[in-house]
Structure formats: C-alpha cells, structure tokens
C-alpha cells in the first residue's frame, strides 16, 4: 500500500498544540522557572539552582504536611471504599427504589466543593450549627476550631459524606454487570453470603474498585477547598494539608521559589502514584493463572 505523504497535515494538530501549550505546558514551565530563581522584589530574579528543592526537602513543615496528607488519604480510603461497597451491596437491584437511590446518592457529587465546605462549616458550628449545637448540648466537647480531633473528624466525615456515593455508584455498576447465573450457581453450590461476596462479587468489581480507589486517592491527595472553608487548616496546622500549605506559602507569604519547588515535587509524587495505580490496574486485567 502506498502511503500518501502530506506534510501540511501537521497543521491539523496545531489547535490542540496551542490549547495544550496554554493550558498545561506554559504554566508548568513558569513554575519550573520560579523554582530555580530567587527574587527580592522589583521583578528582579537571580539564578538559585536547586537551592529551593534542597530547602524544601529539609523542611520539616513540608514533611509534616505530607504526613498529614497521607494520613488523611489513608483514613478516607479506609472508610469510603468498604462503606461504598457495603452501600452498593444493599441497594435495590432494579425498579423505582433503585432509581431513587441513584438520584439521592448522586446529589452530594453535584455540590460544588466550597458549598460542601460551607454546609459543614455551618453544620458543625457550636453556636448555630445543628451538629455542633446538638453535640455540645449532649455534653460532648466538640469544637472544630479549637480541638484537633474535632477538626479532623469533621473534615473526614465531610469527605465521607461528599464522596462515598462515588465509590458506591461505581461498585453498584460493577455489581450490576455480574450475570445472574453466578448467583444461581452459588446457590446450587450452597455458598454462604460471605463466600458469594468473596469469590464472586469482589473479584468481579475489582476493576471498577481500582478506578474508585485511584480517583478517591488523587482527589483526596489534592484536597483544598473543603478543609480550607471549614477549618482554614487549623487549629494551628492540624488540618493543613499539602495544597493548603502550598497556597499559604505561595500567596500568603509570596515565597514563589520554595512554593514552586514544592509544587513540582507535589506534582511528581502524584504522577508517580498514578503511574503505579495505572500499572496495577492494567495488569489486573491481563493476569494469568498460576
């Protein structure tokens, strides 16, 4: 077969190149540019090499934020994944109630992040919030602006409220795709409910579950708006996650160099973890026996 060579065809990909350049490449390069320079104002920049990266790697502040971030992601995954599966298993399979459940469960997913934050910020307030006031009336010391545990619990419960639906919906979709014959065969084989879950349902939803874990991990690892609206990173630095710290550094203190170095490392960590997830996910489908 003869290939037609037409170099003008390159022009056809020009629009997307321009788009990607403006939306990703140029902003990212700006950050790279900042990360290797220092400034004393007046728009004067000096070459700083890898100084900022070294400083950030030695910075206790960044390691603390990373620790909090990992703890947060681990906790919400440990709650949302099993809870989402549990909800999906108990949802009606078809009919009016199934549709109603799906609509109700989608609602939290449709609410903008800052609105979710505001809802919980007010909900948890000790003076006027339904939750905060009730807990206070019951004699429980709950105040997310002062108590570290209260702040963490609020942020975690808020995330669980906001995102468990996503896991549940994905798991539900996975469960719906299991042919009836599997359940019938399990009945014939006298498998217990647990064995049905362990040997039929779990293996069959593993694929969508990996997607759910990846999405929830990425999102929680980059979380900013909701905790920022509720706790502002406090009390102290107790709920200052990576993004919140980054914004404080870049916009609050205007330390552009360190913040840029921080961003790049943050970006690389997410890239690395996503790559690992992707590899695991693609291999999951191709796994052979033995």
């Amino acid at each position, binding site marked *: 077969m003869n290939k037609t060579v037409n170099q003008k065809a390159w022009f056809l990909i020009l629009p997307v190149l321009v788009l990607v350049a403006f939306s990703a490449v140029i902003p990212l390069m700006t950050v790279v540019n900042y990360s290797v320079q220092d400034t004393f104002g007046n728009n004067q920049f000096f070459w700083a090499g890898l100084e900022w990266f070294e400083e950030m790697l030695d910075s206790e502040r960044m390691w603390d934020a990373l620790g909090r971030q990992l703890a947060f992601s681990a906790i919400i995954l440990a709650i949302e994944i099993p809870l989402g599966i549990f909800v999906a298993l108990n949802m009606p399979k078809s009919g009016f109630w199934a549709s109603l459940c799906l609509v109700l469960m989608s609602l939290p997913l449709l609410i903008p992040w800052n609105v979710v934050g505001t809802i919980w910020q007010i909900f948890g307030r000790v003076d006027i919030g339904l939750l905060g006031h009730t807990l206070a009336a019951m004699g429980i010391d709950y105040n997310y602006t002062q108590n570290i545990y209260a702040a963490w619990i609020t942020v975690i419960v808020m995330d669980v409220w906001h995102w468990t639906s996503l896991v549940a919906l994905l798991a539900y979709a996975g469960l719906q795709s299991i042919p009836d014959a599997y359940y019938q065969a399990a*009945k*014939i084989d006298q498998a217990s409910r647990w064995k049905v879950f362990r040997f039929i349902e779990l293996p069959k939803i593993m694929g969508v579950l990996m997607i759910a874990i990846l999405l929830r991990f990425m999102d929680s690892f980059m979380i900013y708006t909701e905790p920022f609206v509720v706790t502002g990173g406090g009390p102290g630095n107790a709920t200052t996650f990576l993004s919140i710290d980054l914004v404080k550094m870049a916009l609050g203190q205007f330390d552009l160099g360190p913040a840029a170095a921080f961003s790049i490392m943050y970006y690389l960590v997410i890239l690395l973890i996503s790559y690992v997830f992707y590899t695991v996910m693609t291999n999951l489908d191709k796994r052979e026996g033995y």
Partner: protein
Amino acid sequence: MAKITLDNLAHSYLPNPKGEDDFALKELNHDWVDGEAYALLGASGCGKSTLLNIISGLLHPSQGRILFDDKDVTHAPTTERNIAQVFQFPVVYDTMTVRDNLAFPLRNRGADAAYVAQRVQQIAAMIGMEDMLNRKARGLAADAKQKISLGRGMVREDVNALLFDEPLTVIDPHMKWELRTQLKSLHHEFGHTMIYVTHDQTEALTFADKVAVMFDGRVVQMGTPQELFERPEHTFVGYFIGSPGMNVLNAEVTGDRAMIAGTQVALGRDFGAPTGKVELGVRPEFTRLTSEDTGLPVTIKRIEDVGRHKIVRADFEGTPLNVIVEEGREISPDMTRITFDPAGVNIYADSWRVAPKGDAA
C-alpha cells in the same frame, strides 16, 4: 436421587397473568422417573429454561406443585433440594484454583477433606483437567471454564438430579462429543436423574433416554427418539426433529383416503373423519420419487448430496416438499411424482396427531 413430579405446574413472569398467552410455561403434569436421562428440546424462548429453573428452585412457579419423591418442595430453597445445575455460560470462581473450584460444592457442605481430594481427582480425570488443578481458573479458555462448571455440577454424588441448561453451547464440536459421551457414561455409572436442556436435536437424541419436546410453553411430546421420529404427536415435533423435518400438506381425510389438492392418496389405515385444520405429515425418509403415473405431481427445485443420501428439494403447488433418496439410486428427469409409504404417514387435526382406528396410542 429422586423421582420428580410436576403437578399442575405453570409459570408466568407477569404478576397478574390474564390468559394462557401470558404464561411462559403452560399447565404441566409430569413425572421424571428416578434415574432416567431426559432431554428438554425446543426452540429458544419455548420455556425450557423456565422449567429447569423451577425444578432447581431458582424460580418459584405461579401455580402448581413440585414433588421430590412425593415430598412437596415447591417453596423449598435451592440448597434444600440438593440439585446440581450447569448453566449455558461458564460460571467459575476466577480467583480460585481449578482444584478449589471443583471442591467448592463439597467443602460448602462440610465434606471430609480426604474425600474431597479423592473426589476432585476423579472428576478432574473425567473432564481431562488433572494437569491444571493448581492453576487459577482466571484466564482459561471458555471451553475449559465450562468443563470446570460441568465438573462442579458432577462432583456431588448424592444429588437428587443433575440439570443441564444448554451446557455445551460454548464448547468446540469435537469436545462436545467427548463430553456428551462422558455425561452418558456417568449417567450409566451413577444412575442420576438427568435433565438436559438443548435446542440441538442431535444433542438431545444422542444424550437422552427420553426427549421432551417443548413448543410455546408446553411439552408437546415426550418419548424415545424413535417415537419422536415415527409418531410425532404435534406438527412442531415433525418439523423440529429430523433433518430435514417432516413434510406437512393440507389434506381432506375421510377413512383411509386423503385428498391433497385434487390428488387421492391411500393411507392404509382408517383415520375416521377428522375435523378442523387437517394436515398430512410424512417424513422425507418415507417419501419416494417415482416415474410412474401415481402420486403427487411435483417440480424438483434442486438436489443436495449430503454424502449418505441425497435430499431432493421439490415443490408441490407452492408447498415445499423434501425427499430423501438413498445413495446409489438414480434420479432421472422423468421422476415427477411423489408417493408416500403409508406406514410413515401421520394425520394431524389442528396440529395434533389423529390416531388411526385400531391404534391404541
């Protein structure tokens, strides 16, 4: 092992069935004799799988009762019925090894480990997967998976019945023969009651002692392969069984004569005077081409040589007719008429067979 009795059984998938048309399975009374191998044969959507699922308890009938050895199990759950069932598409537990898959039904019933090991080995030998026992079931080809499903169905020795729902659909043709032969020898060895659902007549006729032919939610005939061939009780049985199926012609029948579009045909037996829509059915095997001046005048459309014999596709006043001509017999251009062997002729009124006088059946 048990005798299975269906008593006034019927099923509709609608909550409030109005007429007979709403029933996927029409009223049915039948005994499945203990230890026999049955085939349920019929086209897709005729209610075969519905009937099977009712027997295994996966579906609860809208009316009637099911008895296992005269014990009512209509509302008993599947596990209590102690039934094994193999489905159309392979069901394997992906994360388990082949060995664990086969052992699963036994372990769930708390069988002794030594017995499980020995029994699994036996079944693995039967399905030819001894060298794969330690492999994960994931990633196996469809036919290997279906062999595991079959193995899991057969692993319990004490089942009341073994039900197969078109189990060989995904299996390669050469493997089909082998597995079917194994199922049959298994049946001879253990004497389980077996019910085998299929839409493939060869499968049904080679597997079963008795074949139940289903049509439109009804068992239209239950009999040995020979009975189905020689005395189809319903024109559907005639069409569906045989290759090609029975020739069916509109006729007027009085006594031992039939008039087919103006030509008189001798029937050899007295059928009385059937009313309704009367048809004459005769299998291509009992039909002959002749150059003599008797019989129905036909136009020959084409001749297919299938090796063992030739199939002549002919046309009689717009109705297609098939004739089977033994190999080695010449077909000459002057053979323009067809005669029937009276022994192979059946008369139908409104699709159901009319018994000739003096015939007990």
